[in-house]
C-alpha cells in the first residue's frame, strides 16, 4: 500500500510538472503566440472568448502567480478553452472525438507487437544459436535503424500506391456512417492494417530482444535444472517455469508502451493521415491553435501517467518483493 501511495505521489508530481510546463511555455517563450493566433481568426471570435483566451495564454496584466492559480483551477475543472482551428468547438470535444482512433490504432499495434515479440524472444532464448536466435535479431536491429516515418511512407507507397491493397489515408472511407455495422467495421479494419503493421514491424525487435535477454538469465536458474531433472515436458518448463518468471520486465515495458500508444503514434498518424490525437496535435501546431495544443499535450501526458500507474498496481500483484519492502 505504501508503495502504491508513493507511486501515486510521484505521478501527481509528474502531472503537475507537465501542467506547469504548459503554463510557462507560452508565457516565457520569445514571440507572442496570441497575436499570431488573433491575426488568423479575425472576426470569428466573440469578445468574451478572446478574453478567456487571453487568460489561458497569459496575455493579461495580472501578476504571474494569480494567473497560475487561475490556470490550475481551470485545468482541474476541465476547462481547456475553445479550439481556434475548429472554432467554436471546445477543446475537450475535439479531443474526445479523436482519442478513440488513437487508442484503437496504438492498442492493436501494441498488443500484437508485445505478444508476438515476447513469443519470439522466448523461443530465441530457449534454442540459443538456433534459427530464430541468430537470424532475427540482426534483421530487426537493421529495420529498427531506419527512421520510422520513412518505413511507413515506403509501406504506404508499396502497398497503397503501387499494389493498391490498402487505403491510403484516414480511418474509414469518406461518407461512410460510423456505427456498429459490418460494413463500417470491416472498412475501419482495412484502414487499420497498414499503420498498425508498420508500428509492429519497428517495435517488435525491442520486445523480442528484451524478453530474450531476461529469459537467458532465467534459464540459468537452479529451478530450471530442477524442473528438467524432474523430467517435465520442455514446453511446460519453457512457459510455466522460465517465461513466467522472465515476464516481469516485459510488464513494465508494456506499461511504458501503453503510455506511448497515445503520444508515440504521432508519426504514424501523420504519415497515414489517421485522425487521432497525434495527427491533431501536429495540425494544431501548424494552425497555431494553442488551446488545442495545450489540451492535447495534457491529455496525452495524463494518459501516459495513468497507464503507468495501472501497471504499477498490477506489478504489486505480480511481484511479491515489491509488497514486502
Amino acid at each position: 500500500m505504501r508503495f502504491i501511495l508513493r507511486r501515486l505521489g510521484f505521478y501527481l508530481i509528474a502531472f503537475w510538472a507537465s501542467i506547469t510546463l504548459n503554463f510557462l511555455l507560452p508565457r516565457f517563450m520569445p514571440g507572442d503566440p496570441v497575436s499570431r493566433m488573433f491575426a488568423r481568426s479575425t472576426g470569428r471570435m466573440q469578445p468574451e472568448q478572446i478574453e478567456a483566451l487571453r487568460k489561458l495564454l497569459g496575455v493579461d496584466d495580472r501578476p504571474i502567480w494569480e494567473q497560475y492559480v487561475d490556470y490550475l483551477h481551470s485545468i482541474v475543472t476541465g476547462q481547456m478553452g475553445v479550439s481556434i482551428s475548429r472554432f467554436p468547438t471546445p477543446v475537450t470535444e475535439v479531443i474526445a472525438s479523436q482519442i478513440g482512433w488513437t487508442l484503437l490504432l496504438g492498442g492493436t499495434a501494441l498488443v500484437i507487437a508485445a505478444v508476438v515479440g515476447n513469443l519470439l524472444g522466448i523461443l530465441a532464448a530457449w534454442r540459443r544459436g538456433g534459427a530464430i536466435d541468430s537470424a532475427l535479431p540482426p534483421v530487426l536491429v537493421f529495420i529498427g535503424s531506419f527512421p520510422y516515418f520513412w518505413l511507413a511512407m515506403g509501406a504506404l507507397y508499396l502497398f497503397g500506391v503501387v499494389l493498391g491493397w490498402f487505403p491510403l489515408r484516414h480511418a474509414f472511407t469518406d461518407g461512410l456512417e460510423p456505427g456498429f455495422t459490418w460494413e463500417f467495421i470491416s472498412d475501419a479494419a482495412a484502414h487499420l492494417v497498414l499503420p498498425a503493421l508498420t508500428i509492429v514491424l519497428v517495435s517488435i525487435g525491442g520486445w523480442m530482444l528484451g524478453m530474450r535477454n531476461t529469459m537467458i538469465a532465467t534459464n540459468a536458474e537452479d529451478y530450471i535444472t530442477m524442473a528438467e531433472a524432474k523430467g517435465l515436458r520442455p514446453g511446460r518448463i519453457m512457459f510455466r517455469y522460465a517465461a513466467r518468471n522472465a515476464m516481469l520486465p516485459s510488464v513494465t515495458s508494456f506499461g511504458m508502451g501503453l503510455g506511448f500508444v497515445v503520444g508515440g503514434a504521432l508519426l504514424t498518424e501523420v504519415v497515414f493521415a489517421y485522425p487521432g490525437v497525434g495527427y491533431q496535435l501536429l495540425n494544431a501546431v501548424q494552425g497555431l491553435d494553442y488551446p488545442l495544443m495545450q489540451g492535447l499535450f495534457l491529455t496525452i501526458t495524463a494518459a501516459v501517467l495513468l497507464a503507468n500507474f495501472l501497471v504499477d498496481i498490477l506489478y504489486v500483484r505480480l511481484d511479491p518483493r515489491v509488497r514486502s519492502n
Partner: protein
Amino acid sequence: MTTFIDPSPSGVESTTAALTTAGPAPESSAAVRQPSRAPRRVRRSKQGFVHGLLTNKKAMVGMAVMLAFITLALLAPLMFPGDPSRITDMASLEPSAEHWLGTTAKGQDVMALTIHGSRSSLLVGLTVGLASTFIGILVGLASAYFGKFIDEALSLVTNVFLLLPGLPLLVILAAFLPPGLGTVILVLVITGWAGSARVLRSQALSIRSKDFVAAAAVSGERAGRIMFREILPNMASIVMGTLLACVIYGIGAQAGLEFLGLGDVSTVSWGNNLFWAGNEGALLTGSWWVFVPSGLCIALVAFALALINYAVDEVTNPRLRKITAAKASPTTTKTPGRSAA
C-alpha cells in the same frame, strides 16, 4: 516506435545489468595503497579496450561506415560546390550519368542534397549526443555520489522527464521556440538527457559502493575529484555506450522533427530532404529516388553506431564473448547459458 523515442535502447540496458562489476578488485586495492599509480592502470585497461575494438569485426564495420560518412560530410563543399538547394529547370529526372541519384521536383540534384545533408545531420546528432551524455554524467554522478536528498530530487526530475511523452513534448517545444538549428538541438537535449542520466546513475551507484571510493573519501579527496577521477574512469565503457545511443537518438529524432516540418526548413539535412520529398509528393509521382537516399543514410549511420555499441558491449563484457564461443561449439543443450556462466 519506441526505438525512435527511447534514447536508451536495450543494448545499453543490458550493459548496465551485466556490467555492475566493472571496477575489478585488484585495481581498487592498488588505488588504496598507491593512489599515484592508479592513472597508469586505467590507461593500460583502456589500451586493452582499444585493442579489443580494433580486433572486433562489428566495431570495424561500424567505424568504417562512420568514417566514410564523416569524410563525405567534410568533402561536401568540394564535391558539390555551390548551394545544393538551388532550383533549376531539370525537374524530376531519373538517375542518370549526369545526376547519379536523379533530381527533385524542384530540379535539385539529389546526390548533392544527400551529401550536403550529412553535415547538418551528423553535426546535430553528435552535438545532441555529447550534450545529453554530459548532462547525464553530471546528474548521474551527483545522484550516486551525494545520495539522500540530492539523489531523491534528481531522480524525481529524471523520472518525470522519462515519463513525459517524448514526441509530443518535442512537438510542443518546437512549436513555441523560434525555428532554427539551435532550437532543434536544445529541444532534443531537453527530451534526451533523462535516459542517459538513469543508466549512468545506476552504474555510478554500484561503483560508489566499492571500497576504493570509500578509501578516497576517507583520505580526504574532494567530492569533484572522487566523482570525476575515481568513479568516472571506471564507467568509461557505459559512458561510451550511452553516448552512442544518444547520437543515434539525436539523428533519428532530428529527422523526425524535421519531417514534421518543425525544424529549420531552410537548411539542408536528411530530415529536411525527406520533408520536402513528402511535401512535393515525390512518392505519389513515383520519384522514389528522391525519397530513398536520405532515409538509407540515416539507417546506415544508426546501424553503424549500433554495431559499434554492440562491439563495446562485447569487448567490455566477457560474458557476451563467451556466448559466441558457446554458439560455435556443437553442444546444443537447451540451456547453454549455464555452461557459459
